[in-house]
C-alpha cells in the first residue's frame, strides 16, 4: 500500500528563495569539514587495516562458512519484517497526530516518542522477564518494532507538519478521493522522511546487540561480540564486521536510489499558510484504542516490568549509591559526547546547506558512511587501534569512549543541525548585515536564535542515544567504572532482575526527559491550524 504511494510522481518544487550560487565555500569551513570527515572515517580505516593484517585468504576463509549464511538469513529477515512494520506504524501514527483532529494529540505526540528513549535492551528485558513466548525471531520482531518505530514517526511527523497544504487541496480538486490523496500526496510528500526513517530502522537492527542477546536470537552483532569479548578471536570478529559493514553500506546506498530525483522543498522559516485538519468522526474512539494499545505495549510493558521487579526484590537501598555513581558517569560521558557531536556537525551542515557544491555534498555523504558502522564495530576498531598503534594509550579511557560516542552518533547530530541550519537562510543574515550589524552580532541575534532550538534538539538526540548505548560502552568503558547500562547488563546477565530493574528505570528516566524536550520542540514548529468547522 505504502509502496504505491511512494511510486506516485514526486511533488518536486524548486527552492525559490536562495538561488543556487556557485560560490566557493570559505577555506576554514572546508578544512573543518574535511577534518571531521577524516575523524569519522577513521574506524572504517582501522577495520580495513586490521583485516589486511589477517590476510585476504584468512578473511575469505572465515566468511565462507555455513555460520555466515545462518547469520545473514537471521539478520536480513528480521530487518525486512521490522522495517516494514515500523514504516506502517510510524507513518500512520504521525499522520493521526499531525493531520487529524485527534483529541489529546499533544499528549499522544509525547507518548508516541518516549519509546524511542527506552533502550532496545530494556524493552527486551521487560518482555523477556515476564513472558517465555518472547524469544527468538518472533520475540525480536515484537521487541524491535515497539522499540524503534519512533525512528519513522519523528521524521514523518516533522515532514507532514512542514508539508504544503496546497498540494492536498490541489489533488482533491483533481478528483482524487480522500484515501488516494493520503496515499499519493500526503505519503508522497513524506516519502523522503519515510524512507529516511526506514533506513535508520534497518541500520539500528543491524547494529543491535543487547536485545538479541537477551532474546537468544543470533545475528552478526551477537556473534561478533562473542568472538571478540569471549573468545578473543580478533580475525573472525573482523571478518564478520566486514560483512556487517557491507550490509549497512548496501542499505545506505539503496536509499538515494529509492528516493529518486524528486525533492520536496518549501521556503523554510518564512510565513506559512496552514491547512485544516482531517476529521476523524466515528473513527475517533477506535483510533484512541489502537494508540493506547501501542503505547501500552511499547511503553507500559518495559516500565511496568521494571517496576514490578523492583518491588519484588524490595527497594534495594544498597544499590542506591551505585545507581547514583553509574548515573553520574552516564550523564557525564553522554553530555560531553553530545556537545562534541553537535559541534562537529556544525561545519558539515553549514557547508552542505549553504554551499551546495559537489565538494560539500561529497563531504556530507562521506560522513553518513558512519551509519553503516554498528557501534560494536566502531568500538572494536577504536580499541584495536588504541591497543595496537597508540601503545594502549587511552584504551578503555573516558576520552576514547566519548570519542566513540561522538563518531557513532554524529549522523544523528548532523540531521538535527542540518535541519536547524536550513531554518536560518543566508538571506536573513544578509538582511541583518545590511542593517549595520557586525557578523558576530548577526550570529548572536539572528542565526543563533533561529538555529538554537535545533542545536539543542540535536544535542538532546545524541545525549539520549549515548545514555542508552550498551554495546560500545561494554567494550570501551573505563576499567572500574560502571555506567547505568553496563551495571544493568551485569545484573541482567546474572538473571538478577530485581537488581537490574532500578537501573532500567533510571535509564528510562534519564532518556525520557530529553525526549520530552524533543517532542515539545517538534510541537513548537509551525503546526496545522485548528479543526475543520
Amino acid at each position, binding site marked *: 500500500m505504502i509502496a504505491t504511494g511512494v511510486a506516485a510522481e514526486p511533488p518536486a518544487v524548486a527552492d525559490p528563495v536562495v538561488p543556487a550560487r*556557485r560560490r566557493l565555500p570559505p577555506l576554514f569551513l572546508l578544512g573543518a569539514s574535511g577534518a571531521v570527515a577524516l575523524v569519522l572515517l577513521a574506524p572504517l580505516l582501522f577495520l580495513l587495516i586490521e583485516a589486511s593484517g589477517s590476510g585476504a585468504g584468512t578473511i575469505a576463509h572465515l566468511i565462507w562458512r555455513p555460520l555466515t549464511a545462518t547469520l545473514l538469513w537471521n539478520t536480513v529477515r528480521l530487518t525486512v519484517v521490522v522495517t516494514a512494520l515500523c514504516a506502517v506504524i510510524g507513518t500512520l501514527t504521525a499522520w493521526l497526530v499531525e493531520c487529524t483532529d485527534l483529541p489529546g494529540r499533544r499528549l499522544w505526540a509525547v507518548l508516541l516518542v518516549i519509546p524511542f528513549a527506552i533502550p532496545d535492551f530494556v524493552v527486551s528485558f521487560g518482555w523477556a522477564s515476564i513472558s517465555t513466548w518472547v524469544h527468538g525471531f518472533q520475540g525480536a520482531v515484537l521487541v524491535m518494532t515497539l522499540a524503534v518505530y519512533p525512528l519513522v514517526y519523528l521524521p514523518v511527523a516533522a515532514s507532514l507538519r512542514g508539508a504544503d497544504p496546497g498540494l492536498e487541496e490541489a489533488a482533491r480538486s483533481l478528483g482524487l478521493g480522500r484515501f488516494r490523496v493520503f496515499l499519493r500526496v500526503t505519503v508522497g510528500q513524506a516519502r523522503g522522511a519515510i524512507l529516511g526513517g526506514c533506513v535508520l530502522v534497518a541500520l539500528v537492527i543491524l547494529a543491535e546487540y543487547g536485545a538479541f542477546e537477551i532474546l537468544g536470537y543470533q545475528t552478526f552483532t551477537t556473534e561478533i561480540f562473542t568472538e571478540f569479548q569471549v573468545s578473543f578471536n580478533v580475525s573472525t570478529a573482523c571478518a564478520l564486521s566486514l560483512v556487517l559493514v557491507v550490509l549497512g553500506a548496501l542499505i545506505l546506498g539503496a536509499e538515494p536510489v529509492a528516493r529518486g530525483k524528486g525533492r520536496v522543498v518549501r521556503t523554510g522559516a518564512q510565513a506559512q499558510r496552514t491547512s485544516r485538519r482531517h476529521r476523524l468522526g466515528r473513527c475517533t474512539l477506535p483510533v484512541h484504542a489502537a494508540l493506547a494499545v501501542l503505547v501500552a505495549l511499547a511503553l507500559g510493558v518495559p516500565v511496568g516490568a521494571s517496576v514490578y521487579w523492583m518491588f519484588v526484590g524490595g527497594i534495594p537501598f544498597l544499590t542506591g549509591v551505585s545507581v547514583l555513581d553509574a548515573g553520574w558517569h552516564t550523564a557525564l560521558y553522554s553530555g560531553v559526547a553530545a556537545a562534541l557531536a553537535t559541534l562537529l556537525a556544525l561545519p558539515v551542515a553549514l557547508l552542505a546547506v549553504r554551499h551546495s557544491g559537489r565538494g560539500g555534498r561529497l563531504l556530507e555523504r562521506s560522513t553518513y558512511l558512519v551509519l553503516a558502522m554498528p557501534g560494536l564495530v566502531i568500538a572494536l576498531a577504536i580499541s584495536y587501534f588504541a591497543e595496537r598503534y597508540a601503545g594502549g594509550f587511552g584504551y578503555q579511557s573516558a576520552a576514547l569512549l566519548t570519542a566513540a560516542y561522538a563518531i557513532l552518533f554524529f549522523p544523528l547530530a548532523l540531521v538535527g543541525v542540518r535541519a536547524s541550519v536550513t531554518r536560518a537562510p543566508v*538571506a*536573513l543574515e544578509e*538582511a541583518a548585515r*545590511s542593517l549595520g550589524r557586525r557578523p558576530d552580532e548577526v550570529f548572536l541575534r539572528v542565526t543563533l536564535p533561529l538555529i538554537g532550538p535545533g542545536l539543542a534538539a540535536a544535542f538532546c538526540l545524541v545525549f539520549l542515544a549515548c545514555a542508552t548505548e550498551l554495546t560500545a560502552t561494554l567494550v570501551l568503558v573505563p576499567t572500574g567504572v560502571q555506567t547505568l547500562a553496563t551495571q544493568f547488563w551485569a545484573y541482567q546477565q546474572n538473571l538478577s532482575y530485581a537488581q537490574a530493574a532500578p537501573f532500567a528505570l533510571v535509564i528510562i528516566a534519564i532518556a525520557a526527559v530529553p525526549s520530552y524536550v524533543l517532542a515539545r520542540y517538534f510541537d513548537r514548529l509551525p503546526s496545522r491550524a485548528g479543526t475543520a468547522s
Partner: protein
Amino acid sequence: MTLESGAPEGLTTSDLHKAFGDHAVLRGVDLTVPDGAFAAVLGASGSGKTTLLRILAGFERPDRGVVAVGGVVLDDDHHHVRAERRRIGYVPQEGSLFPHLTVEGNVGFGLRAREGREAEVAELLERVGLAGLGRRYPHQLSGGQQQRVALARALAVRPHIVLLDEPFASLDAGLRATVRADVRAAVRRSGATAILVTHDQDEALSIADPVAVIRDGVVAQAASPRDLYESPVDPDLAGFVGEANLIEGTSYGSTAETALGWLQLRDDHRPARQRITVLIRPEQLRVAPFAEGGPGVAARVVEAGFHGHDALVHLVTEDAAAAPMVARVVGGIWLEAGARVTLKVVGPVHCWPRPPAGDAHPGLPAAVPEAGPG
C-alpha cells in the same frame, strides 16, 4: 578614501565585472545614480541585475571595477567595505523578515538600544501604513504588509541608499500599485537614494528616474523614462521597453520617406541621405475611419484587443508595403476586424541608420553610437 573634489555625488559604478565559475554575469557595468534619485535597474531574468544589486549591497565582491557612494570608494581592487559598514539598505525579494522577531523587533533590529527607539519604530511603522501592527509576527502578515515591514526595517537605520530587489513581484496586481506608490513616498520622505531592480518595464518607467536597462551583463542604456521610451539606443531595446513598430525608410536631413509617408525625425542632424529604421510607438499612430482621398495611408484592421481604457489595434497597410503594425486607440471599440481605416503618424519619430547589408536590426548599441541617451 575619497576621490578628488568635484566627483559626482550619489552612486557610481565603473567597469564592474563578476563571473560565477565560467559564467560571466556582469561584463563591465557603468552606472551613475544621482543623489536622492529613485532609480531602476531594468532587465530580463538572467541579465545580471540581481548580481549587480548584491554587489552594491556588499554581499558579493566584484571581480573587477569600482563602486563608490558620495565619492567614497566601497569596492575596488584593494578595498571592500563590508555590508554592515556601507549604510546601504536592502529590501530582499521575499521580504526576508526575521521569523523569530515581532514586527517591532524587525523594524528596530538595526537601531541601537537608546532613548526614543520605540517612538522611532512606531513612527516608521506609521510611515509605511502599518501603525498598530508592531506586536504581530511576520507569519501573521500579508505579503504586502511583509514588504512594508521590510522597507521600514531598511529605512530605520537611515541608509544613504535603499536597494529594492523586485519587492513587488510577489504581490497581486491590485495591491502592487498601492504598495509601489507607498514605498516610493516613504523612500522620498526618508531622503535616501533608491535603486529598484525589476523585470517589469511598466513598473520601472512609471516610478523611477533614471532607468538603467541591463542586458547581457552591461548597461545597454541609462536615461530618463521618457528618453528611454522615445529614443532607445537600438531596436532590440525599443521592443524591450514597450510596444514598437519598426519600419524601414530613407532619411533626408530632418525628414524620412517611409511606407507611412513622409515623417518628421526626432533627431534632425542626419546625413543627407541614409537608409534607416524608424521607431513608431503605438500612441503615435492615429487611426481614423477610412475616407477616400483623405490624408494618411489606407490600412485594414487584423485584430483589436480591448483593454478597457484603450485598445491595441493590429493593422496591415493595404499596399502591404510595411510589416503589420500596432496602434493604441483610446475608446476604439468601434474597430472590428476587417474594418478599413486610414493611418497617420503624429509627432516626430526616432530612427537608427541601417547597416549597408545583412542584418536589418542590429542588436548592438555600438552600431548606432550617435543615438545615445541625451
